């Protein structure tokens, strides 16, 4: 069960609209390495995770990702809410605007709709944790690319905060992987799948 907190994890106050920035940032809402996929990945994987500490890491990081989804959506909203139609046309936001006006919808920067095909829930503790570590790195790369494309410091501060969280999550998933491996046969980590083969 979840409850909502009327508070962003990090403050966001953008004073100037910027459709070009919004168009690339929205990929971290609904794109292949975005926060919606991140939340769904971890919150889906945790049910079959037999190590309670690791299930806790998946729950807590998955929950934080919901907060990041809210932050990315807030960025897109504040960057687009005051755009004029002339700016929308000049800055290439018309292809999004025609379908969604300035509403928030999960898609990749190139227009591809959000898809659960962008993440895995494999039902294997090692496979899922390697997936999670890779996912955090992919999101970190995406934030690095956004920092190359955006110049408003009000936006960059928020992106830098989100980027740093990817690094922290990568670290925690690495430790979670250690918890799983410590419990497995160190001569053959793959002797059985602890999420299915009950041999422990």
């Amino acid at each position, binding site marked *: *069960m979840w409850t909502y907190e009327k508070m962003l994890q990090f403050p966001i106050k953008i004073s100037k609209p910027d459709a070009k920035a919004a168009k690339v940032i929205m990929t971290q809402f609904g794109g292949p390495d975005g926060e919606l996929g991140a939340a769904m990945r971890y919150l889906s994987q*945790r*049910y079959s995770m037999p190590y*309670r*500490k690791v*299930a*806790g*890491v998946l*729950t*807590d990081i998955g929950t934080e990702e919901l907060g990041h989804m809210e932050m990315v959506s807030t960025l897109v909203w504040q960057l687009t809410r005051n755009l004029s139609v002339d700016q929308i046309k000049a800055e290439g936001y018309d292809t999004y605007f025609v379908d969604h006006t300035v509403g928030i919808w999960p898609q990749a920067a190139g227009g591809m709709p959000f898809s659960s095909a962008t993440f895995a829930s494999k039902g294997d503790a090692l496979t899922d944790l390697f997936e999670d570590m890779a996912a955090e790195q992919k999101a970190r790369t995406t934030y690095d690319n956004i920092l190359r494309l955006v110049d408003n410091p009000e936006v960059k501060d928020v992106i830098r905060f989100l980027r740093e969280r990817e690094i922290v999550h990568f670290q925690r998933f690495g430790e979670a992987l250690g918890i799983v491996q410590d419990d497995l046969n160190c001569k053959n980590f793959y002797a059985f799948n602890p999420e299915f083969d009950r041999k422990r």
Partner: protein
Amino acid sequence: MADNKSRLFAELQQVSFVLEDLNLYLDTHPEDASALRYYKHYQQLRQQLLEQYTMEFGPITADNVNIKNTWTWVEGPWPWEGEM
């Protein structure tokens, strides 16, 4: 003790649901005096039950963890294990 635990947990679950449902009602009826009184009553009851459950059996939310020598948030069953 197990009986007391499951009784207290069921009560907390029921009182929490009352508050969730009232929350929705009050969102669209923010001046309904009897609903507000009802909410206040259950708000206090949930707080009391939450404190009692947390002290005796462990945390329901991470920010309510009773801090001792170890972090107890990731101990004990998760809700989907079917043991709570």
